[in-house]
């Protein structure tokens, strides 16, 4: 019998083929899509949060009122460059992704 290209036995499929775990796409790391990554120059950052607002992935994380900056989660960053383009202080630079 040839190998079957399936995810799971039919007996294991959830009833109705519902996806049971909310937000489970967090297990799918889209970070390997990118060819450039954001580099933050912290001295320029005014902690406005627009990078966090405008990221389509939602992968910026607030590092808190002590640290006063937002950090891109490179597991998910697709390198679109919106954060760099929208940053009011040009604090983010898109640099090539190292292969």
């Amino acid at each position, binding site marked *: 019998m040839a190998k079957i*290209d*399936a*995810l*799971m*036995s*039919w*007996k294991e*499929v959830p*009833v*109705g*083929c*519902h*996806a*049971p775990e*909310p937000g489970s796409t967090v297990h799918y790391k889209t970070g390997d899509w990118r060819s450039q990554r954001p580099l933050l120059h912290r001295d320029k950052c005014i902690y406005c949060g627009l990078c966090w607002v405008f990221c389509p992935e939602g992968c910026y994380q607030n590092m808190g009122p002590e640290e006063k900056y937002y950090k891109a989660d490179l597991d998910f960053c697709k390198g679109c460059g919106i954060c760099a383009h929208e940053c009011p202080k040009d604090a983010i630079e898109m640099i090539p992704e190292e292969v």
Partner: protein
Amino acid sequence: MAGRTGIEVSLALSEAVKMADADVIAAYPITPQTHIVEHLAELVADGHLDAEFVPVESEHSAMSACVGSSAAGARTFTATSSQGLALMHEILYMAPALRLPIILAVANRALSAPISIWNDHSDIMAERDTGWIQLFAENGQEVFDLTLQAFRIGEDPQVLLPVAVNLDGFTLSHVIEPVVFPEQKVVDQFLPVYRPKVRLDPAKPVSMGVFGIPEIYTETKRATEAALLDSKAVILRVWDEFEALFGRKYRPIETYRAEDADTLLVAMGSVSETAMTAVDEMRAEGKKVGLVRIRLWRPFPDEEFKAAVAKARVLGVVDRSITPGSHAGPVFMEIRSLLYALPERPAVFGFSLGLGGRDVTRENFKYIYDQCQVLEDTGQDRYEMVGVME
């Protein structure tokens, strides 16, 4: 309304939906289903049924709203016929795949063109492969009973599948028949409140209707089909419970004077009653003929059907629709295929008739009986559209 009442069958159906305490009715009117939904609207407006009556703007939206409502966890009902059922087609496939127990009454009516408002089974046969549980009623009492049972079957945690109850448009929906109505408390005993394990609930978010890549689609279809096949056991159990509470026994296949029959007619729906009269008349002439009535069409009750026809020499299968370009009507094809592998099997011949509301008569059944003898004796095989003016 307990006790035996003369009532238009459509209204009896609506009363069953009322007694079932349906939550949401989303429907669009189409002849000959209209009396069902009109009466339900009345029952809701008068406060006899606490439900949301959603007067959707098309049948496609009716079935879509039913999917939404059932997914939310509400007991959901709709009804349609013919073009309306055809318009629901896209969404019909989704209900079983999402395991949603929507109850649908179909007042069977011919599909256009030409436009016909009259009865045949072309509407439901076009939905044969949608994965719904499909039942055929023969008379008014059955319409009432099957509707109540449909909720119980579909919502059973082992089943969770939508159920279509078929009643012949006009010839059954619009006639007045005696129906025995049970007491509400017995209905409540039979049909508990619907409490689904999985529903759209912010406390337990699930995603329904996901994107199914090739690596999963086959397995989901196998799983849904297994649910349909396994539902038969639940249906039989429900029918036992129904008999215990209401005193009427239902079986997937019913037989009439079939035990010593040489020739068996096979029919679905209200023509069965005409067929039984014809059987009586032919029996009086000494012909050894009987009738097999299919009540459960999907999942098809293989074992029960084979048992019912085991001793017959010839089957004359009556179809109320056609499958152009093939050699048979759908019921005929189903039965031939089912019996093909048996080492000993009756000859099976197919006859389509009663299209677009043309009357099905005792003479038709006698003709079919006679044709079966001729075909079997002469070794011919022919599928026939009966009663066409040449």
